[in-house]
Structures are given as structure tokens and as C-alpha cells.
């Protein structure tokens, strides 16, 4: 069991590595993607800064605390596109019948899909996110000790797991919608961006959706609240690893269900 999991993980790294090599064939792409990732996220920070110039706090959250939430999203997003960008290729893979080849190889199809692309923009995200994280950590009023740092690291990884699970889940729409575009998953992703702010500012419907239905808030607001020990949300934030496992499980389950509907192409 353990040996098998280890082998699966090793193969996953092999497949990702192959994608990195394939991607690096296009050097210009790499630099443009990384740079644009930094730009996109930096624009968001400028936006935050502009808001906080006119209002000193949002629902009891100070500027640097919100930057910390933001940084967490950027890092988790960066991790997810680096190690599991393949979820976003599902629309094309499924609708052009390219899943065939994956179903003929002795390695779980879901892992082949997830490892089938590497988002090099993830590196840009990681650089900017880490910078923001360091800046935020220096300004927020929290006493740091080993336990808190460890918790922070665990929650960042779990937050990435949440995002990967949700990416997989929403992109599985490709099995039902026969279009080679990931519009559905992308609109869900955009909706998830709402969780870059303290979700307490939203109405009940949005809050429930972001917490329970598509728990995007667990890749940003809740884990940040847990690290900052800020407000009642901090207890929920401790559940992030559990939510990550749940999201990954449901993504995989829906994927498996989708596979039974897969029609290949050209019959």
C-alpha cells in the first residue's frame, strides 16, 4: 500500500517533470507567463491598497490582515497551477477524445490528467505570494512561534489541496458540457475570487456557497483567520486539511463518474 502510493507519487513527479521539459521548449512563453502572473496579482494588491486608503478596515480586518489572506490565495493558487494545472485541460482532453491515450496507460487516469500540464505562471505567483506573505507577517499583530509557523505551512498546503480539488470538480463539467472551453470551471473560479476578502462582508447566500457548496473560502479566508487567530472563523480555518481531503475526494469521484460517460471521438 505504502510502496504503491510512493510509486504513484514518484510517477506523478516524473510526469510533471516531463511537462516542465516540454514547456521549457518555449522559453519566451515561460517568461511572459511568469511575468503576467506577477502583474495580475500585483494589480489586485494595488486595488486593495486603494480601497484601504478610503476605509481603514473591512469588518474588523486591517489592511495587512487582508494582504495576508490575499497572499495565501496567491501562494495556494501558485502551488495548484504548478502541480495540478492539468485539471484545466480537461475540456480539450475530453472533447477532442484525447483521454483515450490516458485510459490505455497503467496509471490512474485522474493523476494523468492532473499532471498533464504545468502552469509556469505558478512560479510568478509563488515569488509574489511569498513576498506579500513576508510583508504581511511583519505588519500583523500576531506573536509568531514554531507552532504557528508550522500551522501556517500546513494550512497553505491544505489550501492548495482545496483549490486542486475544486478545479478538478468544476472542470469535470467537460464530461457533461460538450464544449472544448472551460467556461463553467472558469466562472466558478472567478466566483471563488470573492473569498480573497473577509467573507463576513457578504450576504448569507454567498457565504454559504463559499463555505459549503464550493468551499473556495477554505483556500483563503478561513486558513488566514486560523493563522491570525482572528474572529470566530479561526476555528473553521483549522478544518482546512479536512476540507482539502473532502474536495479532492469529491473531485475524483465526479471524475470517475464522468469517465463512464466519456464518448471518445470519431466513432
Amino acid at each position, binding site marked *: 500500500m505504502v510502496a504503491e502510493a510512493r510509486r504513484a507519487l514518484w510517477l506523478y513527479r516524473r510526469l510533471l517533470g516531463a511537462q516542465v521539459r516540454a514547456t521549457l521548449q518555449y522559453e519566451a512563453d515561460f517568461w511572459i507567463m511568469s511575468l503576467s502572473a506577477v502583474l495580475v496579482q500585483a494589480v489586485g494588491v494595488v486595488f486593495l491598497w486603494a480601497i484601504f486608503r478610503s476605509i481603514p478596515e473591512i469588518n474588523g480586518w486591517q489592511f495587512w490582515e487582508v494582504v495576508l489572506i490575499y497572499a495565501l490565495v496567491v501562494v495556494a493558487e501558485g502551488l495548484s497551477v504548478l502541480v495540478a494545472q492539468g485539471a484545466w485541460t480537461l475540456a480539450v482532453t475530453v472533447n477532442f477524445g484525447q483521454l483515450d491515450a490516458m*485510459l490505455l496507460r*497503467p496509471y490512474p487516469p485522474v493523476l494523468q490528467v492532473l499532471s498533464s500540464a504545468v502552469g509556469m505562471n505558478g512560479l510568478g505567483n509563488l515569488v509574489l505570494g511569498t513576498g506579500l506573505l513576508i510583508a504581511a507577517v511583519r505588519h500583523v499583530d500576531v506573536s509568531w512561534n514554531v507552532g504557528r509557523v508550522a500551522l501556517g505551512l500546513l494550512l497553505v498546503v491544505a489550501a492548495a489541496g482545496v483549490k486542486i480539488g475544486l478545479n478538478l470538480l468544476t472542470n469535470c463539467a467537460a464530461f457533461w458540457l460538450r464544449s472544448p472551453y472551460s467556461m463553467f470551471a472558469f466562472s466558478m473560479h472567478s466566483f471563488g475570487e470573492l473569498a480573497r476578502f473577509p467573507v463576513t462582508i457578504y450576504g448569507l447566500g454567498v457565504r454559504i456557497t463559499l463555505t459549503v457548496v464550493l468551499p473556495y473560502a477554505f483556500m483563503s479566508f478561513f486558513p488566514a483567520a486560523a493563522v491570525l487567530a482572528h474572529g470566530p472563523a479561526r476555528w473553521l480555518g483549522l478544518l482546512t486539511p479536512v476540507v482539502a481531503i473532502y474536495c479532492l475526494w469529491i473531485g475524483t469521484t465526479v471524475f470517475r463518474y464522468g469517465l463512464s460517460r466519456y464518448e471518445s471521438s470519431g466513432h
Partner: protein
Amino acid sequence: MEMVHARPVTLIQVAGLRKVFRKPEKAPGLRGSLRHLLQRRFSEHVAVDGIDLSVAQGEAVAYVGPNGAGKSTTVKMLSGILVPTAGQVLVDGLVPYRARVENARRVGVVFGQRTQLWWDLPVRDSLELLRDMHGLGAARYRETLARLDDVLGLADLLPVVARKLSLGQRMRADLAAALLHEPRIVYLDEPTIGLDIAVKDRVRSFVRRLVADGTTVMLTTHDLADIEDICRRIVIIDAGRVVYDGDLQSVKDTHVRERSMSFELAAGLPGVDRIAARLPGAQVRAGSDDRELTVTFDRMTLGAREVLAAVLAEAEIVDMHIDEPAIETVVRKVYAGQLRPEPDGGVDRETVS
């Protein structure tokens, strides 16, 4: 002493296999598409309609039929890509779509229309990734690769990125990728489509060797020449059903009797009657130009040599060729023969392409 006869082991067992696809019913044009958004109507398309099939270990089966007959859909169900709508599939004791990973270790599949290599990687990287997925040891990998290289000539392909390969090169690389783990069962879906004669020959002799080594092969093709020296058994399907399952030679004897020879003559012929008189039972037609001539005959009653002699006696030949019937013609004849019990009832007028 008792003689023990080794009973052939059934590797592929298919019963009542069915696959139905749902197709959106749309009127043409943008208006039709928009209307479909509001009024979603679907029609069912039965691609495979109750197929029974049993293939023994070491057998080489040609699986043929016209376009859209359900060949690829069957292969996709056998290889675990598609989940059947109904019926049973058992391949080497496994239900392919339930035990995909285990099934993938035992079978090799080649689709002529689509590559299974990693598009952006050199062929060597693709093969090494497959080696690791199959968990092949370094020694075994080297050995198999050397053997494949021997027949397929891979050496010059290994450093090339898959998307830069020509069709023939890609096919050779794809064959290597599908057979690297030395599968017991190999499905080949139109492996020679679009290839030039030299590569076709190479692929054919490669498959022949596979069969000789005891691999169970199921070959889907449009090209009668592909199967002639590879398979002894032929399964013909049409509209999702098996219309014939049996010996290849007897199909050819009963349904591929008609052959035609076309001639280009040095000078125009005033008429074809004199040649026709020399060849009773054959059809002799002038082409669009009176220097062209086509003789269609039953190869069981007349030989190519006699036809050639008859034409030579009346005219000077510049060029000639013999047309082999395409698999579609055979299928149509078999099918027509099944529907109409009287021998050669309505098939005489069939043109042989």
C-alpha cells in the same frame, strides 16, 4: 497413455455488446443551435448493436466493415476506453472498463488516426515514461527496445519531438509505444491508414511477426491487403452487427470472386466483341476512351493469364493493372448475400473498384 489436448484459451469473450450514443438533434445553422438550447432534443445512435465474439489465445482476427460500422467503438470497449451500454466484455479475465490500470498492463492498442505519444516530448522520453508506468526494469526495457528498433527502425526517431514526426515515423513510434510492455493482446485500429507502400509493408511484416510469436491480435482495417497474410479469421460487421465470422479464405472464395483487369491499348479498338467472344462469362467494357478496356471476370473460372492472352491476341497493350476488390465491396456482398438467400442474386451489377 492419455493424450492431453491443450484446449485453446479464450482471451476475449464478448456477449450481447451494445453501445448507444446520444446525439443532439439540431436543425442546421445558428437558428437551429439556438433553438436546441431551449428545446433539447436528442436522438440515439446505436453504434454497436449486440455483438458476440470469442477470440482464442494466439488468434489473429481481422475486424472489418465499412465506415461507421462500429469497428472502432468495439475496439474502444474492448480496451476499456468506453463503457458499454449493455452486454459483457471479458478480456483475459478482466472487465476492461472496471480494471483499467490492470487491463492496460496486458493489452497494447494502436490507433492509426491518433497518437498516444506525448506530443511535446521526444519519442525517447515518451517511451521512458511508459517504461516507468509499466514498471519495466532497465535490462528488459533495453532488450525490448532493441528488438523493436530492429523491425521498426526507431534509432533515428528517438530524439525527435513527436509533433515533428511524419505520419509513417509516428506510426512506427506509436507501435513501439504500444508494444513496449510486450502485451499478450494487441488491438490495431487501422494501423496502415495514410501510410506509403514501404511503411505499410514494414508495419504488416511487423504484425506478422507479432502473430508468429503468439500474440493475440485484433486488426481493424479498410485495406484487404493488410489482413490477407496476417489473419486467418475475419469478422465482418455492418451497422453494429456481426454479419460474418469465419475463415478468411472462404469469404474470398465465395464473395471476392470477381476481379477486374484494366488495359491501356496502343491503338483504339473498333469494338470489344472479339475479345468478349474469346472470354465467355467475362464482362468486357470499353473505357471512356476507345484505347481503354476493362475486363471483369470470375477468378474461379478464368485466370488473369487467359484474360491477358485474349486481349493480347486482339490488341497491343501499353499498360495494365489488376484491381483487388476493396473491403467495402466484400462487406456489401456478404451483407447482400445474407439478406438475399439466392446466390449472386443482385450483386452481379456491383462494380469492383
